[in-house]
C-alpha cells in the first residue's frame, strides 16, 4: 500500500506523458524485483523477444514470418517449461526410467518458480501471435510494450491483458478524473474485504483444518471443506483481480474483469465464460482455435475441448492433480455438449426453474472438482471423495460453527451471483444512494481492520 501510494503520487506529478509512463515502468520493475531481483531478467527476456519477434513478423514473409512466431513461442514456453515444469518433468522421467528398469538420478536442483511467470509469458506471447494473425499492428514504442508486459497491478496474477486492449490506452495521455480515483479505491476495499475477511478470515481456517486430516474426515467434514474451498478460491482470486482493476483504475487505466458471477453459471461452458475470464479467453483464442476449434467436426471439437482443458489444468501447476482437474473440466464440457445436442430441444430445460436447478448442479459439480485443485496429493483427494459418499459419520474435523460460517457465506455468495448474473457491478453500485455506498465501504473497512487473522498469500501467486 505504501508502494502504491508512492506510485500514485509520482503518477500525479505534472510531467510529460512519456515521463509518467517511464515512471510506471520503473515502478513495475521495482515491484517485481522486490520479490526476487534476478528474475527481473526473465521479464526482460520475454519482453525483448516478443518486441523483436513482432517487428520481424511484420516485415517478413513466408516461412521466415512463421519462424519468428515460433521463436516467440519457444522462448516464452521454454521459460515457463524450465521454471515451472522442469522439476515435474524430471521427476516423471525418473519414474518412467525406474519402471523400465533403468536408473535415473534426479539432479536435485531446487528450481524456484518466478512470480507471475505463467501470466506475463502468456501476455507477452499473445502480442506476437496477434501481430502474426494480423489482428493488431506492432506498436511503435518499446516503452509502451514493456509497460504492457510488466504493468504492476496485474503482473503477478492477472487479469491477463491483450496488447490491442491495453496498449491503445498508452498512446495518449489520460485526462485524470476524480471519479476514477473514487472507483479505484472502492474496488481496492472490496477486493481486500474478499481476501482478508472472507477468504482468509472465515473460510481458509476451515479448509486448512479439514484438508489437514482428510483421512479422518467424515462425510459432513468433507462436504463442508469442499464447499469452503469453493468459496475461498473465489474470494481469494476474485479479491486479487478486483484489487488489480482498482489499482489500475486509480492510475487511470482500464483492466478487464476476471470474474463475472461464475457461481451463477448454467452449464460449464457458461462457467468458463465467467471464471478467470481472461485465461479462458486466452486458451480459447490461442489454443482451442489453433487446434481447429469446432470447425473440424463434432468428434474433433470434443477432442479439442478436452485437450484445451487438460493443458489449462497443467497451466495452473506442475502436478498430476491439476492435469486431473483439467481433465475433469474437459469431460464436463464434452458431456454438456452431448447433452445439448441430444436434449437441447426438450422444453423443460427452457423453464426458469430448470435453469436454476442446472445452475445449482453446475455449482456443485464445479465445487467437487476443486478437491483436485486443493488436495495435497491424490490420496487425500480420494479420501475426501470417499468421505463425501459416506451417508453417516457426524462431524469430526469441523464443528457446528464452521458449518454455519461456510454455508452462510456460500448462501450469500450464491445469492449475490444470481442477483448479479446479468448485471454490471458499476451500474448496480451506481443505483445505490451515496450514503449507503459510504456505509457499505465503511463497514468493509471496519471488518478488514478488525480481522487480525494470519497472513496468507494469494492462491494464484503460486501459479
Amino acid at each position, binding site marked *: 500500500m*505504501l*508502494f502504491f501510494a508512492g506510485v500514485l503520487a509520482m503518477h500525479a506529478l505534472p510531467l510529460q506523458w512519456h515521463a509518467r509512463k517511464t515512471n510506471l515502468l520503473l515502478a513495475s520493475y521495482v*515491484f517485481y524485483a*522486490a*520479490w*526476487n531481483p534476478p528474475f527481473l531478467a526473465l521479464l526482460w527476456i520475454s519482453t525483448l523477444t516478443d518486441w523483436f519477434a513482432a517487428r520481424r513478423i511484420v516485415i517478413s514473409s513466408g516461412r521466415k514470418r512463421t519462424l519468428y512466431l515460433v521463436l516467440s513461442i519457444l522462448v516464452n514456453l521454454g521459460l515457463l517449461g524450465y521454471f515451472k515444469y522442469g522439476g515435474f518433468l524430471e521427476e516423471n522421467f525418473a519414474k518412467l526410467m525406474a519402471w523400465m528398469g533403468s536408473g535415473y538420478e534426479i539432479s536435485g536442483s531446487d528450481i524456484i518458480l518466478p*512470480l507471475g511467470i505463467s501470466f506475463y509469458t502468456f501476455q507477452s506471447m499473445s502480442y506476437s501471435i496477434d501481430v502474426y494473425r494480423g489482428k493488431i499492428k506492432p506498436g511503435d514504442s518499446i516503452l509502451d510494450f514493456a509497460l504492457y508486459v510488466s504493468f504492476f497491478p496485474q503482473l503477478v496474477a492477472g487479469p491477463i491483458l491483450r496488447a490491442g486492449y491495453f496498449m491503445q490506452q498508452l498512446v495518449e495521455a489520460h485526462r485524470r478524473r*476524480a*471519479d476514477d*480515483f*473514487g*472507483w479505484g*479505491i*472502492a474496488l481496492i476495499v472490496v477486493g481486500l474485504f474478499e481476501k482478508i475477511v472472507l477468504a482468509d*478470515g472465515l473460510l481458509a481456517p476451515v479448509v486448512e483444518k479439514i484438508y489437514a486430516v482428510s483421512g479422518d474426515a467424515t462425510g459432513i467434514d468433507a462436504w463442508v471443506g469442499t464447499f469452503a474451498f469453493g468459496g475461498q478460491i473465489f474470494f481469494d482470486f476474485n479479491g486479487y483481480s478486483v484489487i488489480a*482493476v482498482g489499482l489500475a*483504475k486509480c492510475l487511470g487505466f*482500464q*483492466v*478487464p*474483469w476476471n470474474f*463475472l*458471477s461464475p457461481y451463477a453459471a448454467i452449464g460449464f461452458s457458461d462457467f468458463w465464460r465467467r471464471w478467470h475470464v481472461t485465461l479462458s479467453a486466452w486458451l480459447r483464442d490461442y489454443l482451442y482455435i489453433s487446434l481447429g476449434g469446432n470447425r473440424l467436426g463434432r468428434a474433433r471439437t470434443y477432442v479439442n475441448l478436452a485437450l484445451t482443458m487438460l493443458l489449462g489444468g497443467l497451466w495452473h501447476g506442475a502436478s498430476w492433480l491439476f492435469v486431473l482437474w483439467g481433465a475433469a473440466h474437459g469431460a464436463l464440457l464434452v458431456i454438456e455438449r452431448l447433452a445439448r445436442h441430444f436434449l437441447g430441444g426438450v422444453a423443460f430445460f427452457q423453464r426458469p426453474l430448470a435453469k436454476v436447478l442446472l445452475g445449482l448442479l453446475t455449482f456443485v459439480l464445479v465445487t467437487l472438482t476443486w478437491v483436485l485443485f486443493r488436495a495435497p496429493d491424490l490420496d487425500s483427494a480420494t479420501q475426501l471423495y470417499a468421505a463425501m459418499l459416506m451417508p453417516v459419520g457426524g462431524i469430526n474435523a469441523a464443528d457446528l460453527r464452521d458449518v454455519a460460517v461456510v454455508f452462510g457465506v456460500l448462501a450469500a455468495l450464491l445469492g449475490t451471483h444470481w442477483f*448479479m448474473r446479468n*448485471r*454490471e*457491478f*458499476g*451500474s448496480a*453500485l*451506481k*443505483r*445505490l444512494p*451515496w*450514503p449507503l*455506498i*459510504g*456505509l457499505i*465501504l*465503511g*463497514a468493509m*473497512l*471496519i471488518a478488514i*481492520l*478488525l*480481522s*487480525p487473522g*494470519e*497472513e496468507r498469500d494469494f492462491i494464484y501467486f503460486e501459479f
Partner: protein
Amino acid sequence: MTSSTLNSDPAEPRWAYVWAVAILLVAVVVGGWELLVRGAGLGPGYVDNKVLWADTRHQLNEAGRDAIVLLGASRMQRAIDVDTMSDRFGRPVFQLSIEGSSYLPLFENLAVDPRITGTVVVSIAPAFTFNRLLSQIDEGRQSLYLEYYGNQSHARRLEQQLTLFLQGRLAFRAPGAAPAAVVPELIGSGEMPGRDYKTIFRNRVVHMDHDLIPGDQTDRGLASHYLRNVQPYTEAEFERVVNYIATIAAMLRQKGVDVYFVRLPSAGAVRSLENEFFPWEQFWGVLLQNVDATFVHFADYPELDGLVSQDGSHMDSSRIVEFTERLSDVLARNRLQPGSE
C-alpha cells in the same frame, strides 16, 4: 461486468461524500472499539506466530559473530529474558524457540546458512529430544515457520514490519480483542473477555500469568498431560537422533559457531516423570558423549534450581530476569564470551 461500464449510466456516485461517510464510520467504530477493549484491559500485544518469528530470524542474519541464538520449545522461550542476557554479554540475543516443537529443523537451518557464525544455545527438553511421539508431531511446526521465512520477499518483509508496528500500538489488532473473539464471549457470558494469560514481547520473550490459564496448571496436571505423550526412543532410534545432532553440531563448529546444549530445570511431578522415563545415562549422558559441544545440566548447577513455576515445567515469569542472570553466569563460566565491542 466490464470495467468500461463503470463510466456508463446512471450518474457517478458523489465520491467525496461517499468516502467522508465511510471514513467517519470507520473512525467512530474502530476508535470506539479500541477504547472499549482497552477499557477491558485488552491492551496491544504481539502475536507469537511465524511473522514475529521470521522477523527475528531475519535480524539474526545481520548480527554476525556476536549473535547468540536461543533454540528450543516453550521452556526456553519462557525462561530467558533476552535483554538481560544481551546486557550481560554485550551481544545481541535472538529468541528463536518455538512453543511445542522440536528444534531440529531450525538447528539444521542454522548449520547450512553461511551467515550464522555466532553462538547457538539449545534447550534440550526431554519431551521433544528424547521422546518419539512429540518430536515427530512437532517438527512440522518449525518446518512451516522455516518455509514461511524462506519464501519471504523483500516486499513481504516490509509489510511485516508494518504489521508488527501496528500490533505493538493498537489493541484492536490483537486476536483476543477482535470482534470474532469478543462478541461470542459477550453473548455467552454478558461480560468482556479478560486479558490473555500470555504476554508476548517484540523480542519474543513470553510472560505467563498462571492464574489466568484455563485447566489444571499444577505440576501434577502437566505431568498427567505429559504422561499421555511419553514414548521414549529405543536405543537404536536414539542413536540415529544423536548421530544427526552430532553431524549438525559438527557442521556448526566447523564454521566457528559455539554450540551449547542446556537442560533447563523442571520441578515436582514433571521432574519425577522426566527422571523416570528419560534417565540421565540413557539420554543426556549419551548426547554428552557423542556430540562435540558444551553441555549445561541444571542438576550440576544448584543455582539454576528453585525458580520454576507451579506447572513444574516453565520458569516463573516474575523470576526470569533472575534466572537469566544465573544462567548467564553459568554459561560465562563455560566460556561463553562477551561481545567484541
